[in-house]
């Protein structure tokens, strides 16, 4: 039973209905002006929890992008340095082939050896290259300088560990390459055979050398006066340079693959983020068309309610009492 407006409860109820309409109107108005539906957990707990998860994923995707950008620039800096060293090695190979030519005399070979020496110091310089964050690129987890001298006076890797890594999709990926992987390692000298008689004309046994030692060995072989040792030395140096060129190409390919993986992951993240943002928007944003239509309708209803309230409360028996 609806109480008549002439009673206290009826009057209060009518006023309450009007207030309720105004409140709804204000709510829709707020949704329109802020553009958001869910503002507090109590408005829609499920949507709130879902939106919180999505927003968390979105925020961590942002920093993940930044971390991958940093790793990407480190990778490309490493790639650039390796490409320059590969150019050096190509030039070294030209010089080696030229030097092996029997028509050259000792003076010409010394000139070639000097150039190889220059190439070596250029390569040593590039091996100390630093990334955009100022850290040595080829020292792994160690500190600059990447290469030092060992007891034989040969270039030896001074770093340790592996390159800093970047987390990609729950796995980690090395953001760079450590010296030994790019430039090889020099094998230790085998212990001298005490039984063999020293023979100055017998070439020393072949030895694995890192890139820098290989260049130094090439320079030394170019100035070797003893023909037998010169031949053996030049053969070994050429083979070593070929090996290093292959190794550099492989290292560059490795870096390229990693960069490509980062790029693919970045693309995936972008897509995921777009999806996340659209889902958050679906959960939290006001559907403008519906909200504006509702605002209009509520306005009409409120107008009508107010008018009818005023109209009905004007009708009274008391006016007829004389």
């Amino acid at each position: 039973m609806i109480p008549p407006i002439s009673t206290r409860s009826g009057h209060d109820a009518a006023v309450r209905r009007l207030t309720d309409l105004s409140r709804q109107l204000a709510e829709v108005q707020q949704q329109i002006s802020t553009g958001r539906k869910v503002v507090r957990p109590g408005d829609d707990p499920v949507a709130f929890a879902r939106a919180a998860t999505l927003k968390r994923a979105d925020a961590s995707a942002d920093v993940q992008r930044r971390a991958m950008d940093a790793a990407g620039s480190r990778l490309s800096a490493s790639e650039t340095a390796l490409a320059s060293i590969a150019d050096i090695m190509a030039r070294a190979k030209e010089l080696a082939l030229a030097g092996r030519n029997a028509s050259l005399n000792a003076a010409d070979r010394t000139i070639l050896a000097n150039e190889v020496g220059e190439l070596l110091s250029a390569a040593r310089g590039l091996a100390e290259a630093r990334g955009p964050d100022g850290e040595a690129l080829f020292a792994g987890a160690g500190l600059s300088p990447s290469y030092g001298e060992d007891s034989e006076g040969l270039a030896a890797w001074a770093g340790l560990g592996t390159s800093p890594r970047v987390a990609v999709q729950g796995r980690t990926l090395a953001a760079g390459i450590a010296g030994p992987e790019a430039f090889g390692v020099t094998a230790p000298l085998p212990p001298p055979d005490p039984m063999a008689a020293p023979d100055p004309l017998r070439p020393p046994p072949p030895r694995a050398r890192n890139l820098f030692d290989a260049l130094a060995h090439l320079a030394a072989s170019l100035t070797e006066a003893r023909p037998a040792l010169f031949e053996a030395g030049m053969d070994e140096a050429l083979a070593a340079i070929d090996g290093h060129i292959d190794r550099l190409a492989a290292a560059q390919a490795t870096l390229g693959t990693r960069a490509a993986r980062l790029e693919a992951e970045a693309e995936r993240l972008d897509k995921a983020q777009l999806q996340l943002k659209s889902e958050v928007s679906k959960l939290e944003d006001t559907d403008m068309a519906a909200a504006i239509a509702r605002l209009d309708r509520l306005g009409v209803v409120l107008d009508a309610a107010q008018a009818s309230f005023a109209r009905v409360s004007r009708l009274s028996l008391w006016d007829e009492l004389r």
Partner: protein
Amino acid sequence: MDLLGLGRSGVLAFQRALNATGENVANADTPGFVRRRALLTTQPAGRGGPLERAPTSAGVRFATLVRDVDALKANAARTASGDQARFAARLDWLERLEGLGVSADVATRVGAFFNAATDLAAAPTNRAARTLFLGAADDAASAFAGHGEALAALGDDIGREAALSARTVNDLAAALVRINEQLRRGDPDDAAAAGMLDNRDRLLADLAAEVRISINEGPRGVVEVNLSSGPSAVQLVPQAGNSRRIGVAPDGAAVLLNPEFDPTPLRLPASGRLAGLLEASADITRARAALDSSAAGFAALVNDWHGRGVDGDGAPGQAVFARLGVATTVGKANAGRAPVHVVLADGAVPDASGYRLIADAAGFTLARGDGSASVTGAGPLLLDGLTVSIGGDAVAGDQWTLARLDGARGLALRPLQPGEVAAAARWQIDAPPDNASSGLPTIIDDATALALPGGDTTPPPWWISVIAGGLAEIRAGTTLIDTVPADGSLIAGPGVRFSVPAGAAAGDLFRISPTPAGSPDNANAILLGRLRVQPGPNGTLEAELAADSAGIGARIADTRRLEAAAATLKEDTARANDAVSGVDLEVEAAELTRLQAAYRANAQVIGVARDLFDQILSLSR
């Protein structure tokens, strides 16, 4: 003669009836006013003797003033209003709880801390990244601590409000006792009694808004009020005698009968504002416990993680968060207004029993709560790593209580330098590129491992070379220190356990070395990213925090629905009650017209009687 008497009785009776209607109109907007109705009855006829009324048609008289009340409907309205008050109070406080959660936004700030760790991993040696990481850690700690404080304050507030509600119940009960006394003494039928009954009903309605009550009405409208109903009802106001008192237990979880002496917990039905407050109080307590447990989990996770790495100086990571604090409470009876400033030294552990600071004529005494230690002096007092400085203006006898804080409120960032952030793993493991196998040894910090199996305690750096027969030689420099199996099994070393990969071929070489100071390694920072997504019993830490907020939100949504339903019911029952007891101005207007006409008719009767008299008198002339 008779006609005159009849007219007179009619005029008098209808005057009373018009008075009642007038009162109704005057009180049309008075809350709790019950519509009055004058009940008229035939004047009993006499036998017509010399001292008696005439035997026929003795007229009308005002019998009694009836309050249009339906006890069942009134009771239903009271109960429904109590139910609505319960949900309204609960909703109000839960919304405050929600508001605090929204503004503290702990989950997002904890997420920002983990995101800062990802940024740190991208630039582990960058001082700015380290500073930002510490800033994010500070923000996460203060999110926990600040929210913890806010929840504690909210808990205190709701405790006070519940106590106030219990006091309202006691005051209303005392007022009802007085009304009972007056009702017993007064005349049951007059206007004063009706006003008293209106008052009584108002008090009962107010009381029912606080707690669920049941009522037994006695003679003359005297009521007995019971808390709850049925066999478990507890008498609050007797029909004659004094009321009993209730209070809220100090932990805010239960209502007590006779709180001052012989406190007895009451099990009351969930209705009324007091019940809503107790429910919300339990929710706040739960929210505090959940926050404390999340804070403890977060601090343990981060501190443990940080200890696994090495900082910029090559030293093992220290704890990031301090988990204890001290809160100072000023004594209620303090006469002075001396400010007290308490500083807890880094790493100090305050006593669990707390401390008491007392001012006396000579100076101050700071004592542990259990009395096991104390210091006395004028200036700053030092005890258990606490430095307590007291400003001037203390009066002898003033007291302060220092309580140990743990949980969320005690969480704080320790004073770490950017260089002390442990972004690097403790050990670096590498192998030459020409190893036949691609696997690397794994190494785990383990303080319980003291030496290599052979008994050697030389720590890394080690060179591990795999030899024939599934064994590996460990060398420190060139010295052979041990030979261990190379089959992937865990081998103890001094402070570490490690394994040589099972697939390693003879001739393979590995190196394990400690991370040097300033290393650009970021393995530990990356590890935090992995720990972040490691689910606990309730999902990841951030998911747990978000779920706590959503849980409060769900409770609010639930309460909101129940409140809306209870409000509708309250309105319906109030409407039903009003239909009986309320004043309808239209009805009163109609009534007024009718009574006015009746009054006028009776006046006419007197007039006619007088005319008759006049005619008879004029005959005799």
